[in-house]
């Protein structure tokens, strides 16, 4: 237990880094960490460095696992199952299949064309950006393990229920007909050696860091701002625990935004430190990652408006519900 606690506080929470940055702020900047400016600088440096270290290590490990599950293989695995089992499996595989928003459409086409029910595909599309292995570890680092596990569970449940609902509504007619038109040829999945997988992991680390570094800087910047400069009373008026509309507002603000979960976490962290409900902060985060304007516009190319509206509606309602649920029971997680 002692070893686990040490690993948790030093490797995951990086307390050594916290102390190091405290020294840096005090001796180099000449500021106290409990002053406004000192606090912001500390929050910014500590969070940026921590996120970049964790992200690099995590993406490498996760990419290695992901290299075993290219979408072509996931498609084959899912094809063997039916009903809710398929939805659950799709939600789970969504967490380990490499995914970026620009590949969501070919993936949607590939799954649907192979005869998978669209509900199963949507389970995958909901869980894939929402419940990412890296985000879980970051949640555990910034908050704690209980919150991270609760987040995985609600995320997966949302993906399963969302997908199943879409299946039940029988919306196959609202997919653009060309998706079904010709049977797509099978292509061979290449065999990878350990060296290939390591190479893939390294490439992924570089590619993802290149893609998200700006979002992380902006996210941590906003977090630092909220943390030290925006008065608590102001945040309380908009997003306070006692305001019934806080979750609603946070979700709706988050949906059109396009950012990575890694950029959103520091904002959620700062909001919680300011006394905003955990459910409200997580609802904001889920809104940002699960849905975004660019991904909705992309999906529009393969599904008709009705299905798109139903999809966005189900996910939005789900996130709002989860937000209120966590606000009500969040004290069990802290």
């Amino acid at each position: 237990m002692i070893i686990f606690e040490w690993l948790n506080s030093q490797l995951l929470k990086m307390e050594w880094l916290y102390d190091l940055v405290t020294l840096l702020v005090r001796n180099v900047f000449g500021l106290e960490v409990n002053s406004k400016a000192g606090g912001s600088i500390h929050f910014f440096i500590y969070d940026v460095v921590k996120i970049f270290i964790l992200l690099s290590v995590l993406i490498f490990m996760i990419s290695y696992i992901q290299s075993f599950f290219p979408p072509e293989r996931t498609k084959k695995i899912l094809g063997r199952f039916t009903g809710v089992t398929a939805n659950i499996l799709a939600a789970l595989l969504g967490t380990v299949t490499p995914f970026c928003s620009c590949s969501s459409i070919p993936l949607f086409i590939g799954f649907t064309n192979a005869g998978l029910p669209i509900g199963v595909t949507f389970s995958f599309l909901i869980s894939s950006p929402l419940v990412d292995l890296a985000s879980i570890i970051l949640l555990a680092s910034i908050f704690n393990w209980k919150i991270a596990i609760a987040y995985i569970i609600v995320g997966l449940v949302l993906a399963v229920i969302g997908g199943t609902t879409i299946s039940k509504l029988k919306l196959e007619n609202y997919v653009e007909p060309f998706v079904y038109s010709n049977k797509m040829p099978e292509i061979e999945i290449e065999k990878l050696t350990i060296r290939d997988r390591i190479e893939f992991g390294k490439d992924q680390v570089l590619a993802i860091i290149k893609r998200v570094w700006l979002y992380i800087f902006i996210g941590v910047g906003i977090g630092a701002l909220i943390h030290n400069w925006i008065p608590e009373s102001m945040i309380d008026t908009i997003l306070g625990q006692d305001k019934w509309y806080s979750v609603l507002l946070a979700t709706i603000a988050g949906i059109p935004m396009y950012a990575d979960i890694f950029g959103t976490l520091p904002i959620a962290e700062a909001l919680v430190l300011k006394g905003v409900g955990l459910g409200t902060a997580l609802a904001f985060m889920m809104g940002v990652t699960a849905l975004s304007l660019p991904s909705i516009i992309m999906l529009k190319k393969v599904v008709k408006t009705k299905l798109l509206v139903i999809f966005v509606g189900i996910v939005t309602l789900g996130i709002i519900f989860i937000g209120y649920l966590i606000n009500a029971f969040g004290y069990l997680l802290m």
Partner: protein
Amino acid sequence: MIVKILGSGCKNCETLADNTKVALKETGLDAEIIKVTDFQEIMAYGVMSTPALVIDEKVVSFGKVLKPKEIVQILDKVR
């Protein structure tokens, strides 16, 4: 030789196209590069993860941004 880059036009596809140009120059092969962005056309190749590289109508790689060096190896094999 006709080389096609399949992808919706995201950054990864651009990088793959650039790397392919470099590789072609290196090998001195005369080839035409065509970017395929239409989903219906991409589908016809059976590709689910973009970007993909197609040489003379054969899918040689998908879901990967190949480096110039790797493309040279593939070109050496197919010619």
